[in-house]
């Protein structure tokens, strides 16, 4: 049984269908990217998983149990939601102490997680004076307080500066390395691509693709081929004549769905000399755009 299982999950808000028949697993020791454009239903799915919204149909469970049914949930699931907020007048240390008391964790854990996220020096400052990045770190400290087996993060890189994003990537990887199941939602694909093992892509509340990063990177059309020649215009006409789609960029031509061998044969038949020929995986961005184009 996977640490996180979502089966046939649907959620409707009056006349709006936010999530429709969504099913996927999050495996232990892996970082799963949960991707989709704004309004795709990512946050609703995570909130249903965490018992904050009630599914219209389907289930979302941790080891077969709903979040509300977990004994001492903070020891099993740590979550940072997109709109995670803190009382502005309370210090970070006190905020974590309140959570520690709620979850029956010793205060030593507060100091440990403050150190983990690098907030020890600022722990006695009121959270109202924190930057967005510091708030994100505090949210992660709260999620780690119970040393949980599952981490759920909703848009964790929002508002982070480049060093903060790098820190977040490292933190996600470290948590997975320690055997935790990590589910991280994002619409910032470039950031997710560098830190996830598996990808689930949704749009308009529905599943569009899921699998390993490599599988989804390939997309439905498989690899593309980048090619440069002594006469790109002539080669482009030849490729189009052979039924291929050709995209032009500064470095030459990109032929989606064609292997280097196919491109080489067309070039040879057309008598065009090649100066560069290489397989090129579609970027996650391109795959994402293709999968969610109708949701934009």
């Amino acid at each position, binding site marked *: 049984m996977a640490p996180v299982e979502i089966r046939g999950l649907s959620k409707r808000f009056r006349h709006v269908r936010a999530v429709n028949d969504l099913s996927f697993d999050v495996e232990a020791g892996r970082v799963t990217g949960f991707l989709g454009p704004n309004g795709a239903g990512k946050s609703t799915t995570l909130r249903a998983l965490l018992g904050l919204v009630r599914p219209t149909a389907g289930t979302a469970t941790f080891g077969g149990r709903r979040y509300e049914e*977990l004994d001492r949930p903070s020891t099993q699931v740590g979550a940072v939601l997109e709109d995670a907020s803190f009382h502005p007048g309370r210090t970070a240390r006190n905020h974590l102490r309140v959570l520690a008391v709620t*979850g029956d964790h010793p205060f030593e854990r507060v100091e440990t997680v403050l150190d983990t996220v690098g907030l020890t020096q600022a722990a006695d400052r009121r959270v109202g004076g924190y930057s967005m990045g510091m708030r994100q770190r505090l949210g992660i400290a709260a999620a780690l307080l119970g040393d949980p087996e599952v981490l759920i993060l909703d848009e964790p890189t929002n508002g982070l500066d480049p060093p903060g994003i790098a820190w977040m990537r490292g933190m996600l990887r470290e948590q997975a390395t320690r055997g935790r199941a990590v589910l991280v939602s994002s619409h910032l694909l470039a950031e997710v691509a560098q830190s996830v093992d598996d990808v689930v892509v949704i749009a308009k509340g529905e599943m569009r693709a899921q699998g390993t990063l490599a599988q989804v990177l390939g997309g439905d059309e498989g690899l593309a081929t980048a090619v440069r020649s002594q006469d790109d215009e002539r080669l482009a006409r030849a490729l189009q004549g052979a039924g291929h789609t050709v995209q032009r960029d500064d470095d030459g031509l990109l032929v989606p769905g064609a292997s280097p061998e196919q491109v080489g044969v067309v070039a040879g038949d057309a008598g065009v000399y090649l100066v560069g020929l290489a397989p090129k995986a579609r970027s996650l961005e391109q795959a994402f755009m293709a999968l969610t184009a109708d949701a934009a």
Partner: protein
Amino acid sequence: MTSLLRAELLKLRTTRTFAALVGAALALSLLVVVLTALLTDEFRGNDVRNLFLADFTGLFIMLLGVMGMAGEWRHKTITGTILAAPDRLRLLAAKMLSYAAAGAVLSLIVTLTIMLVGTIILSVRGFDTAAISDLVDVLWRNLLVAGLVGALGVGIGAVVRNQVVAIIAVLVLGFVLEPALFGLAPDVARFGPTQGAPAGIVDANPFGDSDDNTLLAPGVAVLVMFGWIGGFFAAAAARLRGGDLV
């Protein structure tokens, strides 16, 4: 439940609002008692006993209760709170109990302080002081009222959720509607949650003759307060259990 209670009490203690309102309750209560003890020339009947009913803890703990609960929505901390304690009814009950406990403790401190200061002033001025039995009688009534209105404040905050609206509603009810109702329809006003029933518990009408019999008997007044608290708990529970947190 114990953990939830401890967590809520820790929450309460770790904001400046708590310190400010506790200070205000103590200062206002002392001011009234000191001025009354210093400036009044004659104390008759229950005047000395009633002097020590000037414990303003009830008002402030009710406001703290409203802010403590409605503030969860204002500061958007309700999501984190429910993630930490997914059983929403236990959370609501813990919050009510913790504010009731805080109200009682705060009232204990304030009432003992005003009793000490008031008694010293009265003694120095040569007036009779209240008997120990009267002081004990006032003390438990003050504690009970503070505890009950603390819980009620949480219930109001949980139902209204908009902190500003909830605070204004409590102030208007306590300082405008219920006092006006005492003048217009005292038989109805005595069931009020902020003035009427609490006045019955302490057995002193703030808007009428101290010997009048319009007030509810203390036991009935306590039951009425439990009714108000239960009503708000039920309404808040229905909203909390049935609602999505989006």
